[in-house]
């Protein structure tokens, strides 16, 4: 082949590959634009004031397509499928309690996207703001509303490629003081101090402002741990527990358990652990749940499952009875102020 021939081949290839690349991008852009249009048959969403501590209201991230997608919306707790009031505040993850909210959101920059955590008051006004080093995954507020926690996924660096770790931080909602990384706490495995390079902590759930539960992973095993902010310790309680959620009375923990003999794509089931007897109870939900569940009251769990618009909310009794019921379509990360 002469130089000219090669250049012709190259130019032809650039034209062809360029056309494929542009086509794929336009196709994806069209699909993305579609998500900004309201879908017929979806929930009614109207802008309006959203309060975090309004009795009888539930707040969650609205996933329904349209101009208010990803915004915090409130619905009547008695009719979660009803009309939604959209706040204008966009969050990827959210939780609230005691009149305080935590919102983990994306920040769209000029050259790259970042993430930040906002601590919000009951009127959704920003009280504190923290830059995040990775992708938001879990968020929780203590029952009093004075302490918040969140977890992000951090990917090592662009050369190493595929190693991921979690980073869990706790912030004081009043002073704004931040504990960056719970991995700095001392970890006790079955009562003995345990040091490991591969330690990861995620999914905090608060008992009060100093004591909490969370998941610790090390050596390919996950543990439910009891955390203490004064002692700066994490003590293992039980094995094979991820994303714990403490019941309002503090006696039980709902969590996702990795079960044997099911597809590795969908390995988790929703369980409840009695903290006094350490007895595990499987809920009636038979599908794989990858979420940190929320207690609507002392008897009912609310959790997310994949749906047509990314996520739907479901409920199931915590005592293993009954069956799962759909609570709201196109919704994620609910909070129930009353309890």
């Amino acid at each position, binding site marked *: *082949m*002469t*130089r000219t021939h*090669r250049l012709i*081949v*190259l130019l032809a*290839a*650039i034209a062809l*590959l*360029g056309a*494929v*690349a542009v086509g*794929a*991008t336009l*196709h*994806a*852009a069209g*699909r*993305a634009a579609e*998500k900004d249009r309201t879908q017929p048959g979806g929930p009614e969403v109207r802008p309006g004031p959203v309060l975090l501590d309004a009795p009888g209201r539930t707040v969650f991230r609205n996933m329904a397509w349209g101009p208010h997608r990803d915004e915090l919306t409130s619905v009547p707790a008695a009719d979660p499928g009803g009309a939604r009031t959209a706040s204008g505040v966009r969050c*990827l993850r959210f939780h609230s309690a005691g009149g305080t909210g935590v919102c983990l959101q994306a920040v*769209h920059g000029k*050259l*790259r*996207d*970042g*993430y*930040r955590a906002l601590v919000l008051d009951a009127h959704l006004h920003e009280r504190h703001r*923290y*830059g*995040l*080093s*990775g*992708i938001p*995954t879990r968020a929780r507020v203590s029952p009093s509303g004075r302490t918040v926690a969140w977890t992000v*996924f*951090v*990917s*090592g*660096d*662009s*050369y*190493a*490629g*595929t*190693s*991921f*770790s*979690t*980073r869990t*931080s706790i912030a004081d909602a009043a002073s704004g003081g931040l504990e960056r990384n719970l991995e700095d706490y001392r970890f006790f495995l079955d009562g003995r101090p345990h*040091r*490991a*390079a591969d330690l990861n902590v995620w999914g905090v759930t608060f008992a009060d402002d100093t004591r909490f539960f969370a998941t610790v*992973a090390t050596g*390919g095993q996950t543990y439910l741990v009891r955390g203490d902010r004064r002692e700066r310790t994490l003590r293992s309680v039980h094995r094979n527990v991820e994303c714990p959620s403490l019941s309002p009375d503090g006696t039980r923990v709902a969590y996702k358990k990795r079960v044997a003999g099911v597809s*590795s*794509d969908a390995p988790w089931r929703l369980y409840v652990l009695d903290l006094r007897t350490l007895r595990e109870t499987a809920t009636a939900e038979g599908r794989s749940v*990858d979420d940190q569940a929320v207690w609507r009251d002392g008897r009912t769990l609310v959790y997310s499952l*994949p749906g047509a618009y990314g996520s739907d909310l479901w409920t199931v009794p915590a005592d293993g009875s009954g069956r799962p019921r759909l609570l709201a379509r196109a919704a994620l990360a609910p909070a129930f102020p009353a309890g």
Partner: protein
Amino acid sequence: MYLADSRGTPDTSRPAGRATMPGRRAVVPGAVLVLGTVSLVTDVSSEMVTAVLPLYLVGELGLTPLGFGLLDGVYNGFSALVRLLGGRLSDRHGGGHKAVAAVGYGLSALCKPLLLTVHSLPLIGAVLAADRTGKGLRTAPRDALISLSCEPAVRGRAFGVHRAMDTAGALLGPLTAFVILRLAAGGYDAVFTVSGCVAALGVLILLLFAPGRTARATPAAERQRRAVRGLLRRPAVRRLTCCAVLLGLTTVSDSFLYLTLQRRLELSESWFPLLPLGTAAAFLLLAVPLGMLADRTGRRRLFLTGHLALLAAYGLLITSPGGSPALASVVLTLHGGFYAATDGVLAAATADAVPERLRGSGLAVVQTGQAAARFLCSLAFGAAWTAWGDRTALTAAAAGLAVSAALSALLLRPDPAQEQAR
């Protein structure tokens, strides 16, 4: 297509663009620019994927990517074997470098569209492993091609140009992915498709424009096998490998360095994802000047000096009481300077010590030794970090690096006969 090429059209039958304008100071030969372009384009493609992968896994597929790094040891071992194999295969038949490199680039290119079809962690892991296998396969033959395409006197500069182009691609990749996702929110399929197209373009540029057969003689297979074994019996190769391993054993991995940097200098969390960009920018800017400096002052000397820059970075991290963005940028500049003074320069120094017909194998042996040593270091550093904390672990690494550098200085004492050639 490349077979026809390697039989020799007029402009590639000469040892790979080695002849430039007679009488002019040799600039970088066309073949090096071609290989640099291939690397640039390929890095745009692969870094596009790397940049969006975490978000794709967590945000789009809803997967929990924890424990993804667990298999790193296995991958690293496998990738080392593949790299040795790539070097060895490419030396057969008197220079199949281009063919082996093309297979490596091609394998990685095929993996990009495959990402569109797999949606579970084990399968995605397998595709990424295949991608890395392609990378392992192509590195040594590509470096052999670069070294064979230029005059020995300008090898440092040639590798510097190549590494700068490579790094430019690594910086452009995430930017490209960002632009696509800005145009099409959630358009990961578009990112993977564009990445595949870009990778295919890289393979095509390699096939069309890279030099084919590069070595002159075709040694008998048997003779070559013995020669490969004899590689480490050559004092120059042995010394260089020893130094690369010694220094690699005390080179803390990038991710640990960034973690330490963030903790010691108390940088805001949102700075963390930007730290690798600082290193890459310094690497990009310094690769060519330091490569030229290596040509003038001696490659092995610069290779050593580069490690002193790393030692200085460790020193700043250990002694700093608390930090500022300014101090962080000094550390990142030193880190990027370390790469600029060692990465391409080591390849150039290896090429000096290995005869043409064993170039691929020689490069593979030295680079594999270095990579294996760095992997061991990251395991040991992780353990030390857990047991003693980041400052003590880094102090230990710095002490080790100082000792390794001193030993290497002894091992690499200028050999009068060789240095005179510079």
